[in-house]
């Protein structure tokens, strides 16, 4: 089986998963005890409200037979007709909202994937190269505790620390460091192409990304440590040492390359955690991304919007899963296409 047929098969297998997930969402949103139209209107205590309720019922097709509702719902989603928002941003198209809010979450998520890679993996490799030393224990235990820390609490504590940073850091605190930024708030992504704009936007989301990526960082630290530990005991490393290859060359050429194999799928699976985790971090750091949009939609009773967003989340997670399996085969040629 070549790579293309593997990809096609993998995609075909993900169709029932998306279908089931979307059906479950439909069941929760439409069949649940909370009527979407009633949730939108709120308390019905006037003739006007009653009329509005009937109108929204009609618009959402809630009076149709269930099967018809279901087929229309699915058809709309498949054609990417995601409907509109009713409460949070009344009348706004969901796709337009995604386009407006999505980039901020992507920007946050991208850094949340990158920071752990550049912090967690080097630390783990360092710990693995010096096994059972005090530094190793410090890094390992740090990683374990780090990943057990709830994101919301870490976010709250980090925010407090940064707001106090001008008191114990020389030369002003975090807010005035390099470029002037606020502690909470959304990054300005309009000037990304200029160095100054890029720096400001990055600095603005950096604390939030750091929190969002913290669990991944602990994971990657732990895994890269084990990977390095396993490889440095391999025969070929000993052989390389015996023939006089320099330590530096051994580490970079032989250890790191092989250690990367188990790590890359981990990195993609972390990306998957970020989808759900962004809600809390965005709420604490005041970044109005998709997570906040979903949260607001839920708390204000904008169920149609929340259901459509859920569909997008399902697509993203399933997409990441497919991507991860593909990457596996690209990075490690030993992984066969059969039987996976």
């Amino acid at each position, binding site marked *: 089986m070549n790579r293309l047929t593997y990809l096609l098969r993998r995609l075909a297998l993900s169709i029932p998963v998306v279908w*089931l997930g979307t059906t479950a969402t439909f069941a929760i949103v439409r069949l649940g005890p909370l009527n979407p139209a009633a949730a939108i209107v709120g308390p019905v205590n006037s003739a006007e409200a009653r009329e509005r309720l009937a109108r929204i019922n009609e618009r959402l097709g809630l009076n149709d037979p269930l099967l018809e509702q279901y087929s229309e719902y699915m058809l709309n989603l498949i054609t990417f007709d995601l409907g509109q928002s009713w409460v949070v941003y009344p009348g706004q198209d969901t796709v337009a909202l995604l386009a407006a809010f999505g980039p901020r979450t992507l920007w946050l998520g991208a850094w949340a994937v990158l920071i752990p890679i550049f912090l967690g993996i080097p630390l783990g490799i360092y710990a693995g190269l010096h096994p059972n030393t005090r530094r190793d224990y410090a890094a390992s235990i740090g990683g374990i505790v780090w990943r057990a820390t*709830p994101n919301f*609490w870490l976010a709250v504590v980090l925010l407090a620390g940064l707001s106090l940073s001008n008191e114990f850091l020389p030369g002003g605190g975090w807010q005035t460091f390099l470029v002037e930024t606020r502690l909470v708030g959304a990054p300005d992504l309009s000037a990304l192409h200029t160095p100054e704009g890029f720096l400001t936007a990055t600095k603005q989301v950096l604390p939030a990304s750091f929190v969002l990526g913290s669990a991944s960082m602990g994971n990657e630290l732990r895994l890269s440590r084990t990977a390095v530990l396993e490889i440095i005991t391999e025969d070929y490393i000993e052989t390389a040492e015996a023939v006089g290859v320099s330590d530096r060359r051994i580490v970079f050429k032989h250890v790191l390359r092989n250690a990367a194999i188990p790590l890359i799928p981990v990195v993609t*699976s972390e990306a998957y955690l970020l989808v759900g985790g962004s*809600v809390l971090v965005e709420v604490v750091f005041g970044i109005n991304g998709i997570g906040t949009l979903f949260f607001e939609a839920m708390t204000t009773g904008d169920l149609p919007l929340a259901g459509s967003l859920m569909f997008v*989340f399902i697509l993203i997670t399933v997409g990441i899963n497919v991507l991860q399996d593909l990457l596996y085969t690209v990075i490690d040629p030993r992984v066969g296409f059969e039987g996976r």
Partner: protein
Amino acid sequence: MAGNNTARSTPGTEPDHDGRFAPGVGWLAGAALLLAPEAGALVGFLGSLLNVEFVVTVADAVPTLISRETIPNQGVQVPGEGWQGTFFGLSPAAAWALRVVVAYLYAAVWAVWLWRGYTLYRRHYRRRAWTPRDDVFRRFGRHRWGQFGLVIVALFLTLAVFAPALGPTTMERNVYDPYSYEVETYDADAGEVVTVSVGQANLESVSQGTPDRNVPPLAYDAFGRYHPFGTLPSGQDLFTTVAAGSRVSLFVGLLAITVSALVAVGLAMVSAYYGGVVDLLVVLVSDATQALPQLLVVILLSVVLSETWLAQLYSGGVLLALIFALTGWPSLWRAIRGPALQVAERDWVDAADSFGQQPQTTMRKHVLPYVAGYVMVYASMNFGGIVIGIAGLSFLGLGISPPTPEWGRIVDVGQPLLTTASWHVAVIPGLLVVLVVTGFNALGDGIRDAIDAETDLSDEEETSAAASGAGG
């Protein structure tokens, strides 16, 4: 317990009991003796659970060892006379600390006694001299990290079980109905002891950020009340609230884990036995469940179901547990599917089948015991994830509804004060979550290594298993 040692035959010196006195009877007598000082509290708890007023009243009259009646920590400090009304005139801090120590000692004695019971059973009653489980215990006995986890978990369990007695005051007195209770205090201006309602006293012992409006950890307020963790911005005692919150976390976590473990084990047995299409179907359903981001589904479900009767049970705790079970079973199922499939292919399963045994019996007797260990590993690790999840949801204002205390909501309350003198409100519950989750992860690690020294789980499985902060 000490008085009982003489009545008990020493295990190990004789291979069997001497006929006059079975060692098990001695152990049971010891257990009954141990239970006696807490029997009143136990019966009272069961009575309140079943809502039988009469039982609760009777049980309340029975003296209990670990209670604020036996070791009172609230009193009045009269100049020149020391503390009045506390246990032996100790300061409230010392009396409270004594009660905590007694509670933990009591729990420790129980742990030792249960372990003794197990070894006794192993020596005198079990027919086989050795079973594979003995090796599991032996390996765990060398696993320091796992033991650390066990200790943390035990500390957490004790806190949750004895929560009403461990707090310096009670939730009823301090939080739910403070204006119906009174506290006595010495008024220096009037030179006499006066009574103030607890609600009024709370208003004057708030922690709101400025040094003069703050009761830090390990401090007394103006009314001679001791606050081990300081007070909340509303003046309520933080330790009492945190202890009560640990009960909530424990209850929701246990219920969620039990339900999801039942679902996961049931499905694993079915899919391992029948394989093929059944297995594929379960794979699809579990993949679809996992494709929905857990935290978001939990938010969605808890909002959609918030108006139903389910949400009324235990301030939404039951609903929350069910939601976590519904979204959490796939990870448990994935973990035990592999081992279950492997065991189902063994000869003895075939043999049992051809012997004419019912499929349920075959799976229960010949497959389940091999999978049970894995269930424990993943249950322990998922528990931490649920604790984080509940805290995160409550932090957002969903989940457990007030006034029922929850660690995440305390963090939310304390967040604006984090940079001020009242930092303790948000820091302490957060640290406790980290500690408890680390403990459960470590325990899971320990059990996993103890179950099977040979076959390590792959690193990938390891990461997906342990609870991580990303869930909240």
